[in-house]
């Protein structure tokens, strides 16, 4: 579904040259829930921004559903962002002037695909994520967890190939975090969604099938969740501890 091959990305600030990604390679299969973890400056958000086509990269390749993103022009990239990718951000990125339901429908409205089922799908997503009762409210009137679940619903409305989530629980309390992560799980389980999430939170990551640990711009290690969530979280914490010692 998503393949990243030997990705290099660097920044130049004044006379200083920073190499952020130093040949990152990874792949995410359909229906998989993958997290990327790592210390600050490890390159995880840069990786996500490259996959999201927000920032250009120097070399390497990103394939989404078999399509190389680097070769696409601006209009094609916009179509990819609209139909093949779904986004969930730490600060929700909802439009304050639109209701919850309108926010969810926004990707469909942008694409002009406002057929008869758009509103039903939006309503179904609201029900699925437990935000049906607030669907006519504005973002300013709902809680952080509800905002993030709205963002998850919005990310799913166009049935994307992959949902890209950047610290989706970073601004939430533990209860809301759990609700959001559970909504991801639900999306994967009931809608077959593929989720690629960047996070600092081992609790959130423990819900994933796989966690990729990054350090200094390279993939340091991959961990697979083979059963119990709590045990996987312990395993993760131990791996992070070990990584920080090296």
């Amino acid at each position, binding site marked *: 579904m998503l393949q990243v091959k030997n990705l290099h990305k660097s920044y130049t600030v004044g006379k200083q040259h920073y190499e952020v990604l130093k040949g990152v390679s990874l792949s995410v299969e359909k229906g998989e829930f993958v997290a990327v973890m790592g210390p600050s400056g490890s390159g995880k958000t840069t990786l996500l921004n490259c996959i999201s086509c927000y920032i250009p990269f120097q070399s390497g390749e990103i394939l989404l559903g078999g399509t190389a993103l680097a070769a696409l022009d601006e209009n094609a990239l916009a179509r990819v962002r609209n139909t093949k990718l779904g986004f969930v951000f730490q600060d929700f990125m909802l*439009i304050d002037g*639109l209701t919850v339901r309108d926010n969810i429908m926004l990707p469909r409205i*942008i694409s002009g695909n406002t057929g008869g089922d758009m509103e039903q799908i939006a309503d179904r997503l609201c029900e699925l994520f437990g935000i049906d009762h607030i669907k006519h409210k504005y973002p300013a009137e709902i809680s952080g967890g509800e905002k993030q679940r709205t963002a998850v619903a919005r990310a799913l409305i166009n049935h994307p190939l992959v949902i890209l989530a950047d610290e989706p629980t970073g601004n939430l309390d533990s209860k809301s975090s759990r609700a959001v992560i559970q909504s991801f799980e639900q999306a994967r389980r009931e809608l077959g969604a593929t989720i690629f999430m960047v996070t600092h939170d081992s609790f959130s990551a423990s819900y994933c099938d796989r966690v990729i640990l990054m350090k200094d711009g390279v993939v340091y290690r991959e961990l697979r969740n083979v059963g119990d969530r709590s045990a996987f979280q312990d395993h993760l914490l131990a791996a992070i501890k070990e990584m920080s010692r090296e």
Partner: protein
Amino acid sequence: MRTFSEVYAALRRKNRGHYRMLTGCSFFSVLLITAYVTMMRSPTVLTVLPEGGDSRKQVMMVFVLACVGCAMFTLYASSIFFRQKSRETGVFLLLGASRKQIRALLFADLARISFGSCIAGAALGAPLAWLIWRVFRLVVVDSEEMVLTFDPTAGLFALCFSVFVIVMLFVMGARFLRRTNIIDVVNESHKTEPIREVKAWYGTVGIVLMIVGGLLGYLAPSFCVRVLQWYPPSIVSGICYIPLFIGLYLLLLHTVVNGWRRGKSRYKHIITTSIMKFQGRQTVRNMLVITVLIAGAYFASFYTPMLGVGAMMGYAERPIDYAYHYRADQNMVTESEVREMAKEEGVTITNWVEGEGAELGMDGTTQIETETPVGTTYTTEYVEMLSSEIVLSERTYNALTGQQIDVQPGHIRAVCDDNGDNQNMFDPDVTRLTNLVTGEVMHVIPDSDAPLCYTMLFGRYVLDDGDYETITRRLEGRKWFDHIVFFNVSDCDASYAFAKRLFHAIVDRSSPEVEVIDAYNIGAEQYYQSIGKEYAMAPENLAKYQLSPIDYDQRDSSDFRLYWKYMPQFRVLDQNDFVRTMAVYLMLFIFIAIICFAAVIIIAYTRCLTIALANKQLYEDLRHLGASPDYLFRTARGQVSRVFITPCIVGTTGIFALYAMIMYLNDNQFTFQELVGMGACLIIVLACTLVIYGVYRSARKQVCRLLGI
């Protein structure tokens, strides 16, 4: 909601405050500029302000300042608008909207805002100018000259400014959308404005540069003219003023970023300073605009008190209540007719003195000008008969003035003002007199170091009685003589009706031959004829050189009262008709001041509200940190006061210092009239400062309300 344009419309409704602000700012800018240009290009004003004169230059200078101010203000408003729009635009882009989609909707919005505000501003500008003028006519003064007429070319200026606003909004919009990095757009509204390091010396250097720029800008043109014999194009003085504006920018930057407080008191204002620091460039730009507009507004405001006080004191200081002169060949009202008229009007004439002078040719130096691509250069040339002036005998001078002077035979003395100053209006160093009928020449020695002081006879010359007799002996024809009459009355203030009647009688008795402007000089006309050139001051040539001709039928117009060569000087008439005569000048400058102050108030008020909106979160954080309401109030007050107080102080003191410098450098001293005039200006400053303080209080209250303090 099923289409993207419906989403956009919903957001427009939701964010109508942002739209209103941009629309209001654009509208306001175009309105002010249109009103200003309507007035500036009005035939009512143009016929009164002499072409190439200082007043017209001042009006143009303040117009340029107002244009720059309004342009920057609109630019600022648009940058806030796009900043507020950046988040939703970023979200649209990241959700897959194409730039083309967003551009179409954004440009439709911009078209609505820009065309709507510009059309409304341009349409209402002229009515606003008319309305303000109408209020002046109703409340202050009304005269035939005050009837406001419009010139269609003013519309062109308004159109140009409107086009600028429209193009600027679209360019800003296109620039906003062109940003390729979505991350930057998404984060735009969270970004603080970067500001480069501001060194501690910026403030001091700024003040020095302002002083240097002010002096350079004022002195360089006269240096060019006097020393280099070069009339530089106006742009040269503009360039010389550049250090002043750089200095002003440095000074404001230092004030905003570093502040002037050192030591521990710095911590007391740390929040205010840090907030201002990160409002950075926009705050400094706004403060710069406000400072410049305040300076422009005061510059215009000072015109009326300086002129008014100067004129009124001049009238009051005259030693003679009634003075008039006429060419001796005119069938003028006689002494008995004047006395009869006075009797009929219940006025008692207390003393009467009259005398006669002769119009004689004078030598002098003239400028031979050469047009070059970089202005006009000149060389000077001595001419034996350059112009003609009225020359009195010492006996006549003594009789008219009551002084007892003695001019040595073979010498000549010029009559200056009461301070002995010739005000650079004439050359006192005359060495050769010519009888304009016979061509007979008399060589004289000018007593330049002992000028005669008598303002009522300013510009005339005095000869020894014998010399006068010799040079005028064969000056045949009464037209070469000038008859001067001085008299006082017992109650001057009560003699307005008599003064008016006598003035009309003098005009009615004057022939078309003397329907000339005061700059007309028969000797100069002869000189120009002798070198085969056209004399611009001749009545038949005035229109050609865009000068207003003198017309006896327009005897109440300012042109007539100010520029008729034989205009009587009647104290009561001049005092009572001053405002009426100068109405257009006075009201025009008051109008300009109102426009500039209105711009200042709106810009400063808007800026304060934006600061409040931008820092709402910070105030929440401060509350969480335990800041008391009193502390929050003090920090809010600190921000608002910086927007108002710094530009007010800098603009007011700067323009006051510039004005004082101009007054002083005119004659290297402050005359009593100038000091009193500046005192009157100070009262205006106090009054305007009080108004601005009121607006400051209102802005402060509104900011506190927005911040929940």
